[in-house]
């Protein structure tokens, strides 16, 4: 085996090492990182935990806010995200010493810096303040055992300053060779920074950073909404940062998993994280047929874009809602054979232009620029043939932007964080949707007549009733980490 001290000798090795930092963006298998994100999706009004066959308190419990802090998914998300950070720390410490082309060197360092910021951002939005480790050398010192949690602001400040350092050194998407597509771009770093500003309600900064991405000329909206999440559309025009997936039977860690984890149990899927009728109603209320058909597959109906399926079997006795995520679905004709987890060629798009445009809309609105907000909103709605009321303003405009975010980015693992950060009169929106009197809970327990959800009670109708805003704005720190740190890492309140 090659040893670390001899390893960083060439440009090629430096690049191969940086490649490994990317591996933890989605994890190398379904359970390390990606499934936790799906559980976060389940913990919103857009989805049910779904699978009513497998009694799994470490999944369904979290979705229902009967949170089991020891869930392996929370634990491994924490663990593998930090593995990504340490890889970045090693690269950032060792690559400067390597003799190589200076442009390549600064690009590789900027890639590592972007990814490290990505990981800390993903930690802080889930756990609040976390320990910040920024070098490899400190791992060799005994004091590494005594690190404590930094504050939430310190982590966000670190993410922002790192991204500011990385942005100038990162190439534009168009500057990369075709075989390097998927590496971090300036647009990706700017999008992440815009999002960090948005989460912190730094409205003008968010607006301006989003505008830079939009105006970079590197991206455009996919003309046809259905093409965004297509197995045949890798690094499409709208894609800003994606984890590309390919079918390769020799290696099981570079193909997609979500098509299996959220597929129907009669379609070789596991039936986790299925769309709610509440989400479907949101599309119907808006008359948004274009995005509905590319977001939700419903039991007994044909699948849009898959001529081979005339009546989809979503196994409603085994699936809470009788609905399946269309964005994760691969049409029969496009499937690899055998069709199996870890081999799906459907890319996982982490950032796309529509998200940035909606960040711009929201940030512009909150920085008092309603006209710019409306213009961005219109762009998004125009693609899916929806009219925009250009007279909207005030809270109506705000609500329209928020609703647009829900419909456009449904099932793309954004909803939980949006509901946590978006506030009405200082109260997080999630507290009005979930909780014993939450609108989603009331809809399901009192109003819903959905033929699937109201008959399959394997997952209780009152999902979310246990939500408590004094506890559930953050996830628990994994108990293992509290033990391993001898209590230096403290638990979040209420857990």
């Amino acid at each position: 085996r090659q040893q670390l001290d001899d390893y960083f000798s060439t440009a090629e090795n430096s690049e191969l090492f940086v490649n490994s930092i990317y591996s933890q963006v989605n994890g190398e298998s379904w359970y390390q990182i990606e499934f936790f994100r799906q559980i976060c999706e389940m913990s919103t009004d857009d989805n049910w935990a779904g699978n009513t066959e497998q009694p799994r308190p470490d999944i369904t419990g979290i979705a229902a806010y009967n949170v089991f802090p020891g869930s392996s998914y929370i634990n491994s998300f924490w663990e593998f995200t930090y593995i990504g950070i340490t890889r970045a720390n090693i690269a950032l410490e060792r690559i400067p010493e390597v003799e190589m082309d200076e442009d390549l060197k600064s690009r590789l360092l900027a890639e590592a810096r972007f990814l490290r910021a990505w990981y800390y951002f993903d930690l802080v939005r889930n756990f609040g303040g976390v320990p910040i480790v920024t070098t490899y050398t400190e791992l060799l010192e005994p004091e590494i055992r005594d690190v404590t949690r930094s504050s939430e602001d310190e982590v966000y400040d670190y993410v922002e300053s790192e991204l500011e350092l990385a942005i100038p050194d990162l190439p534009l998407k168009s500057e990369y060779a075709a075989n390097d597509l998927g590496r971090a771009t300036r647009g990706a770093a700017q999008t992440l920074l815009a999002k960090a500003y948005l989460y912190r309600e730094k409205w003008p900064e968010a607006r301006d950073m989003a505008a830079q991405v939009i105006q970079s000329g590197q991206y455009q909206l996919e003309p046809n909404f259905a093409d965004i999440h297509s197995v045949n559309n890798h690094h499409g025009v709208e894609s800003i940062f994606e984890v590309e997936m390919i079918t390769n039977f020799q290696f099981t860690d570079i193909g997609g998993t979500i098509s299996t984890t959220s597929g129907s149990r009669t379609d070789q899927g596991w039936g986790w994280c299925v769309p709610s009728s509440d989400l479907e109603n949101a599309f119907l209320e808006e008359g948004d047929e274009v995005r509905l058909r590319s977001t939700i597959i419903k039991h007994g109906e044909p699948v849009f874009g898959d001529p081979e399926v005339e009546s989809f079997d979503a196994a409603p006795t085994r699936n809470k809602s009788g609905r399946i995520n269309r964005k994760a679905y691969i049409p029969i004709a496009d499937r690899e054979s055998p069709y199996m987890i870890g081999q799906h060629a459907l890319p996982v798009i982490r950032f796309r232009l529509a998200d940035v445009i909606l960040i711009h809309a929201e940030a512009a609105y909150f920085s008092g620029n309603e006209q710019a907000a409306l213009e961005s909103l219109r762009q998004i709605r125009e693609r899916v043939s929806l009219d925009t009321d250009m007279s909207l303003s005030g809270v109506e405009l705000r609500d329209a932007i928020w609703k647009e975010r829900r419909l456009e980015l449904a099932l793309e693992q954004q909803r939980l964080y949006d509901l946590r950060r978006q506030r009405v009169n200082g109260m997080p929106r999630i507290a009005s949707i979930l909780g014993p009197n939450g609108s989603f809970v009331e809809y399901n327990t009192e109003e819903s007549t959905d033929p699937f959800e109201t008959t399959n009670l394997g997952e209780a109708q009152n999902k979310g009733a246990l939500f408590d805003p004094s506890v559930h704005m953050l996830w628990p720190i994994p108990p293992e980490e509290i033990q391993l740190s001898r209590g230096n890492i403290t638990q979040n309140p209420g857990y």
Partner: protein
Amino acid sequence: QKEVTGTIKDEAGTLLPGVNISEKGTSNGTVSDFDGNFTISVEENAVLVFSYLGFQAQEIEVSGKSVLNVVMANDQEALSEVVVIGYGAIERDKISSSVSTVEGEELTKVTASNPAESLQGKAAGVQVLSGGGNPGASPQILVRGITSNNGTQPLIVLDGVPLAQGTSLNFLNPNDIKNFQILKDASASAIYGSRASNGVVLITTKRGAAGKPTINFDFSQGFQRLEKINVANADEYIQVMNLRRTNDGSAPIYDQADYNTSTDWWDETIENFAPVTNLNLRASGGSENIKYAASVSYFKQESNYSKGFYEKVTARFNTDFQISDKISIKQDINPRVESYGNTPNVLYNVLRIDPLTPVYLPQDERTGNIFSIYEGSNNQVPNPVGSIARLFNETKFFGLMSNTQFNYEIIDGLNFNSQLGLNINHARQDVFNPTFFTTPNEQRQINNVTRRVDENFNYVWNNTINYTQDFGKHYLNVLGGVLFDSQTYNYVSAYREELPSDENPDLRYIDAAAGEGVSVGGNEAVETIFSGIFRGIYTYDDRYFFTGTIRADESSKFAEGNRLGVFPSVSVAWDVDSEEFFNVDFINNLRFKAGYGQIGNQNIDRNGQFFSIGTGNYVFGGSRVVSNYLSQFGNPALQWETVEDKNVGLTMAIFDNALDFSVEYYEKTSQDLLFNVELPNYTGIPGLVAQNVGSFESKGWDIQVGYNKTWGDFDMDLNMNVSTNQSKAVALAPGNEQLFGQNREDLGNRFIKITELGRTVGLFYGFETDGIFQNQTEINAHSSENGQLIQPDAQPGDLKFVDTNNDGVLNDDDLTTIGNPFPDFYGGFTANMSYKDFDFSMQWYGSFGNDVFNYPRTFMNAGTQDVNIAAGTLGRVWTPENPSAEFPRLTLNDRNGNYQRPSSLFIEDASYLRLRNVQFGYNLDIKGFQKFRVYVSGQNLFTITDYSGFDPEVSAGGDIINDFGIDYARYPVSKTYLVGLNLTL
């Protein structure tokens, strides 16, 4: 020349066969026959020397007599036997260190694949932890507690050749073993230096004796049974699952009317009779110049499942050549073939799968291959019958050991010895995983085949010079030597996918596969140790005994600069009974001894010092790219673990040696303890890091009592030993004040084992419970000073957890130690009795005061994740009508975390006393046979215990500190019933 004949008897008048008779000063000699008779031709004025183990040798002048009837006197010391010690042999009474001996004869009473199993309860201070009841399982031997976390197995030395760490004794034929010597303290084991800290087991195989050939044939045949575990049937399962839901206000899940299946998964998977067969044939004999002992044996044991077996054929040829007065050579060859099929590990799933699921799909729903005919369970537990059907994992092993010893007597008392031990083995493992479909979570779409070939070559070259001489009352024995030990490990493995057929066993090979999934592996590792040893033994007047040893080892396992270790020891003994002032008649022997030494442990991952780079994959631009990352975080500062050992003891024999007694006390302290530390995950360090973290101390008492008496035809031999041990952490490096083990996902990703400063190592860790809340008043009363409820989510029937730090909040700060897996004391009792042609023996083993983490209790009265429950659960769980229940209420959501936290609910006292073996034999008097014995025996026939799990003797698995004492319902120790035959010609 003159012919002398005679008969040899002992003091009781019993004829003594096998007595050595030699003409003094010549190589002329013979052995008495089965009836104690001998004939020898000698010079007229010869002096005959009669010698026999356990008797005083005597010299008789022939002086013209032609008949000599000799009475051999019992050796009052009963200790003049020569025993092996490291790199030499010496009279037992000259040893001043702590050594336990177990005779080979004792080992053959138990029919087991592994001779170590027979050691259980036979020697004080030696704990044998079961490896489970599956065929070929290897128990762990623990000598005097724990001073290390890395490879606590003692060093095994076979006829002077140290074997690789962790070598299973499966390869040995118990009938070949003359005895086991267990070197328990450092003054005995320090001669083995850096590998001795877990104790040393010296195994000596039987050798031939001059005389007419002896032929032995042994046969036993039996079967093994498992005690059935009763779980709920369909009716009870439905009631419990529905109650779990209705208790939480949800709708019931099952309607009894919908189900007419009630599968008994135990009966579907477990076979009642698992046969075990043992055959052994040996011959020994020879002349004064060439002696031989040859054996061949066959052993086969099957599991109680339809898959899983262990089979071996071993042979051994031990030869001794006296080339000249000066030169002798020993040459031993030991080839062996083993074959084993992995035993399914499905008991856990047998307990958990719901009884509503039929074993097979209905005929008309079967579409796939023969591995796809199994029903997927309602509660998502993999169908165990299907798992067994799909298990194809077999290994074929071939091994050859050769042991050559050359001895040259330079001058009288000065010997040069050179020993070359070779150990070559080859193992081939074949694994096949067929395509099947049961459910989306339980399926394989592409079949695969793996073959792995291991080839190891180890050799040992020992060169020693030994000088032994008596100078009047002074006796001196000095040894010096240079040793070299090399172990080479080598493997290659290949994995391929897409075989053309799942069902044709002839097509399960690498070349038949066609798929893209290919993976190959191969590696070679070499470990060497270069050593120098010195030992001096001095005794004065058989009253004062002194031994000093020193060994220096240079091991390749450590980084340069840390490779050399030096290990000294010293021991003294005083025979009080040999003093002139001592005149207590009934005390035959009284000896005090004391020893001190330092020994080492180098059992760490040989790669522990390295920071290794691993290889993975990612995708850019539509193609796979290689990625590299840090796969192991090393520690170049790793050092030897050193154990400092002190031992004092007393041995005594009284009443004409009928009663013997020994007691010893020891303290062992490890320095620079090696531990694989898991750093906090925020470090992003993958896996564990080997570190020298501190110091463990192990201390305890070993007590042994033997009673041996003959009354006419009745002979009785009783032996009992009791040991205590406590192993504590006495120093831990900063940052490592708490060492954890056994992270359990379903108990909240918490560790359930902890080692803390000043406390016993490897204690159970969790929440303390204080009964069950009976009503809301009790829940309200469990509150902080300012009235805040400590368990706000609790309902009547939930567990009350103790707020151990009294901070008014129940959280991970309240975790505490909740049990100790190590016994207060353990011991064995052996009784051998014979009357005329009848013989009877029994052997008991007990362990007292040890706790077990009964893992099945986390679900077997709860139905967590809807798994099946123990029969009778409804009567054991809390309901308002059953307030004194042991287990909390049934709940689906479990908001109180009754079953989501490690707690004292799962800890039980697992003290037990077990009848390990009972045997009843009868010797038929048949012409032509020296012995024709038939016997019946039973192993593990019954166990006295309060433990509610399946087997209080939980198998060890893994490392002792972090894994021992947790019952994961592995294959339990089974009851064995046997009949057997021993013939001697």
